[in-house]
């Protein structure tokens, strides 16, 4: 099981459903945010730190089977509610390398 760095609220453990994105995937997420004109609801900032991803498709009935949520943290240090997320389909951001990577979180949208 991959052990992504950082973002652990309790310091010691990160939840097993989350996995880290490589730099290529993170770039694509930023592109998607820019393309959709995304901004922080609390302060209007458009710059975000990209965090972990969570596969939504299996656990949540209201999501498409290939949906993920990517953690976004507003870069504005004064922001009252900096933590948010964006829902993206797998093909829009995940790099191919991660798809074949055995260490990626197993709960993934798989073609059956």
């Amino acid at each position, binding site marked *: 099981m991959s052990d992504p760095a950082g973002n652990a609220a309790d310091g010691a453990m990160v939840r*097993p459903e*989350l996995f880290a994105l490589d730099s290529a995937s993170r770039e694509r997420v930023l592109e998607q945010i820019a393309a959709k004109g995304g901004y922080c609801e609390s302060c209007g900032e458009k710059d975000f730190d990209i965090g972990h991803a969570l596969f939504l498709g*299996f656990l949540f*009935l209201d999501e498409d089977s290939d949906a993920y949520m990517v953690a976004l943290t507003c870069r504005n240090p004064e922001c009252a509610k900096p933590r948010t*997320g964006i829902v993206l389909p797998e093909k829009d951001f995940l790099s191919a390398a991660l798809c074949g990577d055995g260490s990626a979180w197993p709960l993934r949208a798989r073609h059956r």
Partner: protein
Amino acid sequence: MTETVLDYPAWLRIDHWLNVLFLTLLLRSGIEILSTHPKLYWHDDSKPGTEWARFTTKKMPTDRLYDTLDEEEDYSPLISLPGHKKLGMGRHWHFIAVIGWILVGLSYYLLLFATGQWHRYWPQSWATFAEAWNDIITYMTFNLPPLLPNEPLDAIQKLTYAGVIFLLAPFQILTGAAQSPAIEARFPWFVRLWGGRQCARSLHFLGLVAFLIFIAIHVSMVFFWGWGQLNASMIFGSVRNVAWATVCSFLIIGAIVAIHVAATVWSLRRPAQVRRILGAVITRARLILLRPLDSRQNYPERMLSDEHRVNGKPPCSTRYKVMAVHNFVDWRLRVGGLVEQPATLDLAAIRAMAEPEGQRVLHNCVQGWSSIGEWKGIPLALVADLVRPLPQARFVCFLTMQDNSRDEPSSQGEGQFYEVMDLELVYKPQTILAYEMNGNLLPIKHGAPLRLRVETQVGFKMAKWIYQIEFIDDLRGIGYGLGGWREDNIHYDKDVEI
């Protein structure tokens, strides 16, 4: 020693017909309970695909989370009491019938031995077994074998009755008891004795089959030996007024059927009323017999289930998903109500309260499946000590982020999921707020970031996705006032040691 005359005293006859009533109630309500998870396993993990029997046509998806609420079957009221996925009602009828049946059985045992009538069932010597084999051969020649001297039965009937009364009936009671979370928690060796919780459940089902076979053969025997005469014995005490005996037998059977129909209709139309009336007896018995039991479970690591089964789907709200993807940094637990000092805690504060307490325990879902898991967290008593409940606080209410209207299409009801339990359960051993499971952070499908564990209770009490805990003095003002979401909507009991 005076030889007991093996006749049909009044108590024997009354107990016989009461037995017919209670046994048939047990059978039909038992099938209702089976319908809620119509799969039987041998192993405690209840691993999907490993069942040895299935009584359903449903197939579950492989690409989506499904829970056991999706697997629930809708059986006809003809075979189940009351039918139509009403597990709450099925359980109430089953438990009230258990109480009635055990009381009848106890009176029967006591009187059998006090009057010497036990000789009618207990074989005098090994010769009875040889005689029983001869009787079977005789039946296979389509003839009736001779009765045993001075007895109202032939040898094979005698042995069969002995088996049913002294073996099968206690067997059903004991395998039933082995499925009680409170009994399993306090006496893990007892559930191991039966091969585990699922084995006990499977054996209990085989007992049901044995009773059905017994009833089929018994009724056939009464028919072939003389319906009128035998019913005269079992109603009037001797072979007289045979025609009237036949009429009376059908009247009695009709009355029993009428009770079944009435119970079914009443349960389907007024479940809350059934729950209240039957519950008045059942809950009292539960609290007296089972509430004092404390959990002492410590299953070895090798017994942990690879895939712990799940019920209830995670909250589909954006807020929850955002919290999850940020590892619940923004999640807060509010503890308040009738307390001296309300508190708001985040996960770090909860973890800091104490070294995590771990417990490897058997989880019992109300539907009948089980799994063994390791949960780590802090004792709920610590949180109670932090906020200091006021003297008038009697219950604890757990509010969750799950909304059944939105999140659980297979549930039969709407609205926010919550559960209420008696305050005394807070202070029982192995009652914890768990934030870890099987060595990892508590998974989303198991209630992240925090869930309740109360090991003497059935699983639905152990609220998941908690965000608020309230100490209250009256549960009637919450939801529909029955002590929890499942209590309100499916009419389960609030106190579920069994």
